[in-house]
Structure formats: C-alpha cells, structure tokens
C-alpha cells in the first residue's frame, strides 16, 4: 500500500515540476505561445474536473456543463465592460458600477452559476439517465439563445474585453503570471475536489450512483444531495469560465454551445470517469492531440475521431484506468 502511494506521489510530483518548469523552458527555447496554449489546457482541465464531480461520481451526465463556463466568462466580461464604459450594471435598489477585480468577479461568477444551477437543477434532477442528459442540454441551449439576444453585450458577435481583470500583487496581463495563477487555482481546486469526493458528502453522492434507492432507505434525502453536488460542480465551471474569458479577453455565445459541453464530456470520459486526475489527464490529452494533429494536417478531426473510438473500445476505464494499472503495479 505504502509502495503504491509512493509511486503515485512521485508521479504527481513529476507532473507538478514539469508544469512549473514549462513556462521557463518555453521562453528559453523561444516558443512562448506554448504558455498560452497550456494555460488553456489548465483552464479546461478545471472545467473537466468540475464536470467529473457530477458525471463520474454522481452519474449525473450533464450535456449542458458549458453553460456554466459561459456564465462565468460572461460575468467577467460584463462586469469589466461596465467599468470601462462607465455605465452602471444596474441602478436599483442601489447603483453598481461593475468591477475589474478578479477576486470579486470570481465570487460573483460562482454565485450566479450557483443560482442558475439551483433553479435548473431543481427541475432537471427530477429526471434520470438520458432524460437528464437532454434536459441539461435544453437549459444550456436556452442560455445560448438568451445571450445571442443580448444586443448590449454584442449579441451573436460576442464581447471583447479591454484587458484582463486585475489582482493585487500579481500582474495578470503577463502571460507567465497568468499561467501560474491558473495552475495555482487548478491545484487548489483538485485538492478541494479530492477532499469533497472522500468526505461523507462525497460518499453519499457515490452511493447514489451505485444504488439511489438504497441510499434513500439509509435515510439520506438523495435529491438534495444530488442538487448540492450539481451546484458545486457549476461553481467550478464558472471559475474556469472567468479564467477562460480572461485568457482570450473575448467572450461569445459559442461558450454555451452544446459542442463545448460535448467536448468537456469527451475529456472526462477519455481520461476515465470518476477520478479527479483522470479528468485532468483527459483534458490535457484531448487538447494536446487537437493541437498536435492540427499542426500536421488541416483535417485533424478526421484522425482524432477514430483515435477516440479506438480509446473507447480498447481502454475501458479511460486513459487513467490504463495508467492506474501501472501505478498500482498489477497488470
């Protein structure tokens, strides 16, 4: 047991060192665009982890998770838009001018996502299985069309941000600092997610996945547990959304699209359901595959598709499942 823990620990340590060293290496060899694309990978890894919390642990397959990424991104863009344009966000019951403070924006984004998740979750969680997949998709599509109709915020064209949101001490406009900020947030999020999954709450959620009736018989009100998990996952996605908006300094309704929700699901399944590290690995591998293949051929999707199919058929528990066999030392 200790031996296997060690192997896993060493593996994590190496991964962390590589991620820490990456920006310096990239700058040294003059390929600083790598920093930007790795920042994107880290942000998507965070979104994937948040999705895995409900899909992998709670068997709540959401096909609308991108909606919360989109909400987070739009909160960041809209609040700073109002500061820059000097128009209050709202005047009633008090006047609010918007903000460019990243911490505050993260908080607001999480609140907004939690609120939307609470309302949509109340309805969605009445359904199960494929119906849940479709109803979450429906809510995401509604938000997609809602943001298309918001002409003030660019409608279908989206909204350009004038620079990133700011933090004290850290200069977010510097790509390397921003990379480390994202890495830090991802690391904290992974630790929190692991604690959550192994807490009593996490056990109940996993119990619901295996046998919800039995959990109910044990006296747990599973509906509220699942709703809480759904809300927690939404806030994680919103944080990823804020970071994504800050990274590209641009938001558009495409962030809500089912295509992004689908990609997030693919990352989670590719990495291996129900493991936090699996979601991270899935995000890294999917986005890197995308970038590497697209460097060789314009028709990269033609090759990515069969690779995904291959993984499904031959790696039953995703990539992390393959890796875990090696880490645990038994084939």
């Amino acid at each position, binding site marked *: 047991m200790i031996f296997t823990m060690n192997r896993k620990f060493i593996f994590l340590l190496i991964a962390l060192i590589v991620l820490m060293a990456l920006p310096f290496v990239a700058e040294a060899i003059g390929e600083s665009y790598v920093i930007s694309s790795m920042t994107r990978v880290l942000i998507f890894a965070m979104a994937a982890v948040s999705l895995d919390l409900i899909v992998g642990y709670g068997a709540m397959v959401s096909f609308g998770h991108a909606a919360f990424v989109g909400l987070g991104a739009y909160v960041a863009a809209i609040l700073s838009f109002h500061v820059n344009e000097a128009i209050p966000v709202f005047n009633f019951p008090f006047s609010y001018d918007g903000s460019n403070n990243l911490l505050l924006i993260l908080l607001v984004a999480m609140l907004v996502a939690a609120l939307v998740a609470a309302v949509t979750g109340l309805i969605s969680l009445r359904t199960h299985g494929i119906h849940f997949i479709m*109803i979450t998709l*429906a*809510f995401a599509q509604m938000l997609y069309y809602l943001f298309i109709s918001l002409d003030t915020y660019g409608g279908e064209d989206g909204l350009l941000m004038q620079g990133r949101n700011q933090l004290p001490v850290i200069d977010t406009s510097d790509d390397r600092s921003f990379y480390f900020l994202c890495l830090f947030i991802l690391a904290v999020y992974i630790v929190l997610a692991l604690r959550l999954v192994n807490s009593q709450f996490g056990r109940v959620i996993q119990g619901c996945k295996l046998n919800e009736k039995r959990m109910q018989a044990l006296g747990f009100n599973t509906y509220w547990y699942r709703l809480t998990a759904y809300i927690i996952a939404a806030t994680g996605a919103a944080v990823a959304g804020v970071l994504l908006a800050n990274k590209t300094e641009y938001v558009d309704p495409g962030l809500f699209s089912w295509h992004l929700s689908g990609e997030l699901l693919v990352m989670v399944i590719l990495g291996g359901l129900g493991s936090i590290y699996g979601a991270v690995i899935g995000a890294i591998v999917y986005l890197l595959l995308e970038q590497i293949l697209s460097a060789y051929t314009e028709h990269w*999707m*033609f090759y990515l*598709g069969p690779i995904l199919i291959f993984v*499904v058929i031959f790696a039953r528990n995703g990539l992390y499942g393959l890796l875990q066999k090696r880490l645990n030392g038994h084939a």
Partner: protein
Amino acid sequence: MLLFIEQVLNGLQLGFMLFLLSAGLTLVFGVMNLINLAHGSFYMVGAYVAATVMQATGSFLLALLVGLIMAGLCGLLVEVIVLRHLYKRDHLDQVLATFGLILFFNEGTRMIWGRQPLFMQVPELFSGSVEILPGIPYPVYRLLIIVTGLLVATGLYLLINHTRLGMRIRAGASNRSMIAALGVNIRWLYSLVFALGALLAGFAGVMAAPLFAVESGMGESILILTFVVIVIGGIGSVKGALLGALLVGLVDTLGRAFLPDLLQWMSASDNANSIAASLSSMGIYLLMAAILAFKPRGLFPAG
C-alpha cells in the same frame, strides 16, 4: 389567417422531416439501448450524395436512390465496425465513440467535397406551387415532404406492428436475451434496424437537400432537434417520435413566425424584436423542459 395556414403547413413539413430522423434514432435507442450522436451524419451523407448525383445526372429519382443506398450502407458499416462492440457498454462510452464518428464524418465530407456548401435544385416536377385553398399557393415540394412523411409513418407502423420482422424488433426491445434464446439471430436484427434508421436519416437528408445548404456539420444542428423530439415523445416509441416531431415542428415554426408580432403588439419597446427572436429559438427547449418537469419519461414512454 392565410399566413397562419401556411405556417402550420411549414410546421408540419419540418415536423415530418424531424420524424424521418427521429424514428430511426428512437428505434436504435429502444431496441439496442444505444445513444447514437452520429445519427445526423447519415442525414448529411444522404444530402451530400444526393446533391452530387443530382448535379451530375439531373435525375432526382436517381439522386434519391443513390443517397438512400449510401446512407444505409454507411449505417451498416458503422454498426459492424464500431457500434456493435458498444451495445453492452455504458452510455457514456457510446457518447464518446459516436462523438468520434461525428468528427470523422464531418471532416471526411470536408475532405471530399470541400468547405463550400453545395446547393441542390428542387426537382422540376415538384418545383411549382399549388393553391391548396383559394388564395394560398404552397410549394409542391414542401407538400411532397409532408406526404412522404405520412407514407413513411404508415409504412413504419405496418412494418413494426404487422410483420414478422416488426414483431422481432418489438421483442428485441422488450427482452434481448429471450429473443436470442428463441433462436433469432440478434446480431443480424440489430444491424438491420441500425441500417434502417440510417436509411431513414439519409432519406430526410435527401429531402432536405433542396431546401437547405448542404454543408459539413449540417447533421448536428438538426440532431439536437431530433433528440428533443425523441425525449419529448418518449424514448423507444415510434408513435411518440411522430407526435413529438409534429409538436416540435409546429411550436418552432409558429413561434418564429408569430412571436415577434405578438410581443411588438404587447409592448412597443425596441428590444421586443431581439427578445422575441431569442424566445422563439428557445421555444422548443422550454417545451421540452416543461414536459420533462411533469412527465420525466416523455409523453409516450415505451415499455
């Protein structure tokens, strides 16, 4: 009033088109318990092949025939090579694999036909319009879609309820191992059902080709609508698919046609137009959320 009748017909036409797609999808789900995101790809294949054959030969009948065969063939190949291995797997594995298929097919059509959309002429025989009621001219081609949709619906009803094959399909949907134990070649049955679904999707694609731009990714926008249809109707039920398709077709079309005027009439604000546009796009999703909130398994849950 005249406008209303015309829009109702448009709604029915969209509805029957959706029915062609959702009948196959709901059968595949009901019988094989398989989520197929790539169903829209067969629609796309049908449309591309038909548009190409039509351009080359000018014969709509030939285009229809080749389009159907190619879509059915694609379905058969996909089932035999990939999906057959996934029936017993988790739904999520199926989602991932069929997502891979979407990427493959979309990029494949781009490689063969390029990025420019194709356009297909409405066949000459059906290019005019008729007066269905005095003062309401309506394009013959759209009527043709409604009529063929009705024919297919009847055909499917007869096939499923009054033939030996249909009996086996229904038996397969309710108890897989039992029907296999009774000596029915279940593998062959599955391949056949899947190919039939792909064929119907291809048929929808051929019929849609003269109305929409034929382009890569055209399958996905309609696939989402198709999923809405089968979820509203109840998964696995062809009757549900028909009613769901007509409901979605009508709500979507009528919402887009009349909601803007209605809102304008109620409030003269400048935002009314864009709000109406987004509300009418949201219409079917609101419908679906409402139906699922009260009937979590759809209107006609099968089995």
